[in-house]
């Protein structure tokens, strides 16, 4: 009823403008680049709502009042305003323009001209991403937008990147921005149920993306209300343009390899070092290595020889890593007439990882269609169908997998080097669940990576349809109703077969686990939009609407163990044990109503406000509705007469101030049923059980974020230099936390979801875009974006109850505490190695220095003067922040004649990383070590970082509990991509080719960093808010070289 009323009001208002003396103007709009006709250009009479668009051949016809001006605007081109005068034919050439200020911004439920936009958003053109050797567009965003920080966790293919818009947005809820593709919010979590990584965003072919708009402040994001707490990524796919069919073919192929692998001991160094460590250990404990596991000389590691007599010295990197080949092909056909336009694409991507047997394939097809059915009805439809296939061996590099026994990232460095992968007869060298020990008297600890690599079969495959049907009804001049229904249907098949010979399937004589997930996600949006201009000065725009979404995910699966015959290598074979596994059902629904009103006066003063009411099924019945909204103001100073009259006005082509404030929520509650207390069903032997398995919280309510943004847009020298600067402050309240409970209370999981915390993020963002040189033949475009972020946790359960988080559930690494930024590294301070005795010195909280002697029994821990003391393991201190305090990108494009050269740098810093892999590399168990251990303490007076080697010591190196000796600064500068392209200038039209470009690209060509691990861009815990900045046993990043071709027909 309210809506009808509103309609009525708008109706009356629309009758107001009177029509002056009119005349007909016609003409043609072409591109200044190549003279081609530009269809779809908006042509409007300035100051009125009257407008049209150009047809397929670029022509238009419009009725305008005498003395009016016509405004020609088109995405990607500089708008032009021309007075009609007495002309009746006006032909226009529009110049293409990549400068941000003149473009449109895709915002919630519509678009806005950037000149009228008073929020904070970045637009990323997707063209550069499509050429990159990545699996999902999300990986290509690094360094492209101010205030958007992307971390690629490691080089495992299709590992979802960590994306943070203006810092960490939550602690227990996801801090990953809401991703909306052509209107429908889609899930972004890794959907693999095994150790492959399956980023569902890879189901979208990056080549199909026109642009990515990142909504960063509440004014822009508040229209997504409850869902926008972490920012919003709006993905707009390409659409057809009327005109004759255009075909483009884009292909690339390339190679990649692992970089920055640590140097480990060779076979001889290994044997010498470990035997020395055993000798040292036996002096302390006669059972350190039992007598049956060493020879008469107390050596346990003895040489093994190849048939030709040479010493076996295995480079395990060769078994695990490779130079990988990838290829990617896309073909698109676009075209249409004045009524109908279409975009059709087919894509195929086949990528191999530098980790052997790690592959990614995508086959995708997209069909986007726009049809003007009647003068008042426009229909839009998008259909995207894709199949993505991810395969990876156990790598230890997926979130939660760091300590997998058969994780190849760790095995590659830690496997014993004097043992071979294969026996002389070509068979695998095996002993129980490890590589065979040959002459060594102590067994190895890790499986033979060749077996894990070859015989395990681990895949995750998505088949996905994203379809959208929309209608736009023009009810009146300026009044439009839109409806859009989207359906996102994903089937994921997860297959895991562990071979029975070595690795995770050994103890169960083979293990097969299949799981299939069916996700049904639909979304229906209805909006009513009204635009009105009064007296050529007052511009109103109003929108009201509703948005409902429901996601239901069904999982089912089974696990089979104990192969009847090792002949079988699939789930479908015959097994002795059959178990239910991977079953689940969950459902989340959202319901929202919203309104937005924008007003500007003469394009000078802007005010905009929006409100939204949101319901979320994952919150308690009483608290599931929340109210959100924002306001923003803008002042285009450069439109003021006084400014235009100033000298400065000639230099500064545009100057605008803007401010916004708003409140948004975070709807990504990690548990769809967190408000319920439940009992789970299980078994006791063969009888059914019921057990208390979740303490719910009936008071669970919205986590909200109040966001302030103050900024300015400046452009100089006729937009040759543009600057956008923003200050932001995000105050997050009612943080939903998994509040830790004393384990002695026996609360399942030792935590209860509750709204207890608060934190803020603040910082500056600067985006500077310039064309320092443009001689016509030679040009240089550059973009520098830079952002700072200060994260601060201001309240939790109480000041003394921090949140402690483990890496992969095992290693205590991270603490989140009031007064610090989230996810600090938490461990014990150390004070080097005591030159007198080679023992690692640890520092307790009170500053007491103690030293450790492995196998020292009651004297393991002593003060420096030798008195026994207690272990400092529980004396952890906060050792360093893991969230970068600054980051950005520096992107350059040089063009000379047909050549183009792109150099994209990314940088980040101010953070520390826990290099847990280094702890492993210095572990004195049977594991191989970094060559650093050759400098271990040997005699009194030795000054070294590496303690005296005592066999079995996992304390001095930091394996047993985290020590600060393994913490390093994470600052870096990377040449992310360097691309050299050449556009063939010859006229190839006789061959039917309208354009042809070839290019070569290098990714990750150099890296400057003090960090010693595989890469400062690392996250062994994936998207975790509470345990970021951890490297533990991950494979490194890739360096890639690709060669590509773009053909236009």
């Amino acid at each position, binding site marked *: 009823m309210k*809506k009808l009323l509103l309609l009525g009001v708008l109706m009356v208002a629309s009758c107001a403008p009177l029509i002056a003396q009119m005349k007909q103007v016609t003409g043609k709009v072409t591109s200044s680049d190549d003279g081609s006709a530009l269809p779809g250009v908006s042509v409007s009479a300035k100051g009125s709502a009257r407008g049209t668009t150009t047809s397929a051949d670029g022509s238009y016809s419009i009725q305008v009042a005498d003395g009016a001006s016509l405004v020609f605007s088109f995405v990607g081109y500089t708008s032009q305003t021309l007075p009609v005068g007495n002309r009746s034919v006006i032909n226009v050439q529009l110049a293409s323009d990549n400068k941000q200020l003149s473009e449109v911004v895709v915002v919630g439920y519509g678009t806005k001209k950037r000149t009228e936009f008073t929020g904070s958003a970045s637009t990323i053109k997707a063209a550069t991403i499509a050429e990159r050797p990545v699996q999902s567009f999300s990986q290509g965003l690094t360094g492209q937008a101010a205030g958007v920080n992307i971390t690629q966790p490691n080089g495992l293919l299709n590992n979802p990147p960590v994306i943070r818009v203006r810092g960490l947005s939550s602690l227990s809820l996801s801090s990953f921005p809401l991703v909306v593709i052509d209107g429908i919010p889609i899930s972004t979590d890794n959907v693999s149920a095994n150790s492959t990584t399956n980023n569902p965003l890879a189901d979208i072919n990056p080549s199909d993306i026109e642009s990515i708009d990142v909504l960063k402040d509440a004014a822009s994001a508040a229209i997504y209300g409850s869902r926008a707490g972490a920012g919003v990524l709006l993905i707009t796919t390409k659409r057809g343009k009327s005109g004759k069919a255009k075909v483009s073919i884009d292909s690339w192929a390339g190679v990649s390899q692992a970089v920055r692998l640590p140097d480990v001991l060779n076979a001889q160094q290994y044997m010498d070092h470990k035997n020395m460590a055993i000798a040292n250990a036996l002096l*302390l*404990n006669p*059972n350190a290595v039992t007598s049956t596991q060493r020879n008469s000389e107390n050596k346990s590691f003895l040489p093994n020889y190849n048939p030709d007599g040479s010493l076996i010295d295995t480079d395990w990197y060769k078994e695990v890593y490779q130079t990988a080949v990838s290829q990617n092909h896309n073909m698109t056909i676009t075209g249409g007439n004045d009524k109908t336009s279409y975009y059709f694409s087919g894509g195929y991507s086949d990528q191999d990882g530098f980790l052997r047997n790690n592959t990614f394939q995508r086959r995708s097809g997209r069909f986007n269609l726009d049809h003007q059915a009647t003068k008042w009805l426009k229909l839009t439809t998008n259909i995207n169908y894709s199949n993505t296939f991810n395969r990876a061996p156990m790598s230890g590099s997926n979130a939660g997998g760091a*300590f997998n*026994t058969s994780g190849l990232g760790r095995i590659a460095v830690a496997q014993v080097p004097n043992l071979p992968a294969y026996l002389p007869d070509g068979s695998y060298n095996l002993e*129980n669940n490890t590589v065979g020990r040959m002459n060594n008297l102590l067994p190895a*600890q890790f499986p033979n990576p060749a077996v894990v690599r070859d015989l395990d079969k681990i895949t995750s495959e998505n088949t996905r349809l994203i379809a959208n049907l929309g209608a736009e*009804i023009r*009810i009146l001049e300026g009044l439009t*109703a839109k409806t859009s229904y989207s359906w996102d249907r994903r089937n994921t098949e997860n297959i895991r077969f562990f071979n029975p010979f070595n690795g995770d399937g050994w103890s169960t004589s083979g293990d097969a686990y299949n799981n299939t997930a069916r996700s049904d996600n639909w979304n*229906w949006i209805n909006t009513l939009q009204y635009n009105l201009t009064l007296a050529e000065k007052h511009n109103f725009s109003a929108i009201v609407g*509703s948005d*409902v979404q*429901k996601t239901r995910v069904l999982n089912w699966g089974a696990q089979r163990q*104990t192969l009847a015959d090792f002949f079988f290598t699939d789930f479908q074979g015959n097994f002795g044990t059959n178990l*239910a596994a991977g079953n*689940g059902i*969950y459902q989340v*629904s959202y*319901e929202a109503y919203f309104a937005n009103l924008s007003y500007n006066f003469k394009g000078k003063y802007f005010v905009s406000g929006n409100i939204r009411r949101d319901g979320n099924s*994952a919150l308690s*019945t009483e608290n599931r509705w929340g109210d959100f909204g924002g306001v923003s103001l803008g002042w285009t100073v450069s439109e003021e007469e006084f400014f235009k009259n100033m000298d400065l006005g000639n230099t500064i082509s545009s100057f605008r101030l803007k401010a916004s404030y708003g409140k948004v929520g975070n709807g990504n509650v990690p548990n*769809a*049923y967190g408000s*319920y*207390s*439940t*009992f*789970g*069903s*299980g*078994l*006791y*032997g063969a*009888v*059914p*059980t*019921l*057990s208390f398995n979740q*303490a719910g919280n009936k008071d669970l309510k919205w986590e909200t974020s109040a966001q302030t943004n103050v900024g300015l847009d400046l452009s100089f020298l006729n937009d040759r230099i543009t600057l956008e600067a923003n200050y932001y402050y995000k105050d997050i309240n009612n943080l939903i936390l998994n509040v*830790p409970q*004393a*384990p*002695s*209370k026996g*609360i399942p999981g*030792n935590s209860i979801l509750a709204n207890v915390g608060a934190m803020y993020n603040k910082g500056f963002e600067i985006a500077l875009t310039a064309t320092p040189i443009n001689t016509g033949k030679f040009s240089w475009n550059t973009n520098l974006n830079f952002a700072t972020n200060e994260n601060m946790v201001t309240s939790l359960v109480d000041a*003394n109850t921090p949140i402690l988080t483990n890496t992969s559930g*095992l290693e*205590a690494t991270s603490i989140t505490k009031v007064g610090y930024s989230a996810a600090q590294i938490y461990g014990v301070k150390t004070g080097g190695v005591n030159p007198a005795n080679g023992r690692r010195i640890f520092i307790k909280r009170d500053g007491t220095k103690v030293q450790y002697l492995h196998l020292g*029994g*009651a004297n*393991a821990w002593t003060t420096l003067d030798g008195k026994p003391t207690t*272990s400092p*393991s*529980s004396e952890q201190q906060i050792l360093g922040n893991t969230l970068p305090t600054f980051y950005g990108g520096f992107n350059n494009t040089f063009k000379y004649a047909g050549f183009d050269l792109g150099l994209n740098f990314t940088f980040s810093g101010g953070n520390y990383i826990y290099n847990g892999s280094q702890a492993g590399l210095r572990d004195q168990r*049977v594991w191989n070590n970094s060559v650093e251990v050759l400098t271990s303490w040997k005699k009194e007076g030795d000054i070294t970082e590496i303690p005296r080697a005592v066999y079995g010591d996992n*304390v001095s190196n930091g394996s*047993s509990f985290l020590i600060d000796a393994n913490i390093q600064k994470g600052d870096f500068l990377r040449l992310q991509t360097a691309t050299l392209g050449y556009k063939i200038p010859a006229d190839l039209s006789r061959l039917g080719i309208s354009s042809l470009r070839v290019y070569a690209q290098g990714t990750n060509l150099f890296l400057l960093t003090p960090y010693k691990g595989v890469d400062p861009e690392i996250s062994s815990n994936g998207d975790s808010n509470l345990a970021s900045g951890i490297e533990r046993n991950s494979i490194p990043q890739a360096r890639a070289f690709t060669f590509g071709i773009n053909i236009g027909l």
Partner: protein
Amino acid sequence: MKLFTNKIGYLTIAFAMTVSSCSKDFLNAVPELDLSDATVFSTPARVLSQVNGLYGSAKSGSLFGGRYLIYNDIRGEEFVNRTTNSVTGYSTYQGNQDPSDTYLAGFWIQGYLTINRANLFLEGLTANPNAVSSTLAANYRGEAKFIRALTYFSLVQFFAKPYILDKGASPGLPLRLKGETSSSNNNLARSTVAQVYDQILKDLNEAETELPDSYSTALLNTTRAHKNTAIALKTRVLLAKGDYAGVITEANKIVSAAAPFRSTTRVAHALQADVSAVFKAPYTTTESIFSFPMDATNAPGTQNQLGYYFNAGNVEYYLNTGSTGIYSHPQFAATDDRKTKLTVATTAIARFPSSTKFSGVSPYIDFVPNIRYAEVLLNLAEAEAEAGNLNRAISILNAVHKRSDATYEFTGLDTKANVVRAILTERRIEFLAEGFRANDVLRRGEPLNSFGAGTLIQPSDPRYIYGIPLVETQTNPGIGN
């Protein structure tokens, strides 16, 4: 204008449809695979399922289904580590365990989860008096108390100073007897060891009166608590308390005065003629007073399985054949059934002897024994010896030993000390790999001869017991250290 009105009409319909699709139920999403706490007492079957849930909670692989037993055995002198894997107890084996250890915390977490479930169940039974018959309600109460007592006793042995050292005056455990479902009550100090023992014995005494005499099948008699089960556990608790008269009183309720020693009341517990029968399917002889059942669909879980640790699973630990280990002890003769039938000289995995009590391979569904009649007998024998009744003590010791090694004759059983020592040695043989070793040393306040540490760990050594897990000290400021 007509067109216009029509469009308004369509639009209104579209909006109406959106709104109607959002009926009140639209935002209602309730768990479809878990039951609401409001419904778990709604049928007698669900109440029974809850009872079984308490046992199921206790039998978790991180507690009595595996690791509790394993960690008891690897702290002593009987086993040698083969794999140096910190995930399978290596640091505890070496005496380097630490309050931050995930698996030690696992005992605490799973133990208290079980205790809370028992507390909630007891409160729920009171709040739903008509859920089941009053007889069944009493039986179920007894079972919940039995589980709570077993769990408290097992935790107090790991995480507190042995009672015997100072009559239980040391800090014990936070004694939680109320169901917890909210964020309050994190702060709770430790009660003394003596207070914890008092609660355990109170629970067991009440359980003894409430529990049924027996169940309808041998399987239930083995896997659910009945009166004799509570009595048997009392003998263990009282022995650890040094209350020998109490042990004798309780044990005599289920042990006949003279050989052949057997229970003449309720379930007819007795030693089996062949000890290896106890460890074979169906695992439900009358010797197995209380065991945790396993099933292919309810297995102990990865790296929790006894057979994986001690047998051909992965021989994480093999038998110490050196002079300190029981394997080479003269009381453990080569002809002993427990050596010939329950150990092997080598396995496919290792060239060393292994225990084969848990002989099943993957998925490792050997039942895990918790209380055997042999234990009650040796508890009684030890108490009798300590109380001065050497004859009955020796008679019981012979009954246990000669069952497996009929020709063996003890010598030198002339003093109390020698008899007690022989009984303690017999326990090492009889309960090898059954999770008794460290507790048997600690309950007597003796030094722990840790093979892994290569040294004796004295009662004064901080390594003698496990520290309160870090996760508890971080969330319960009252716990102290």
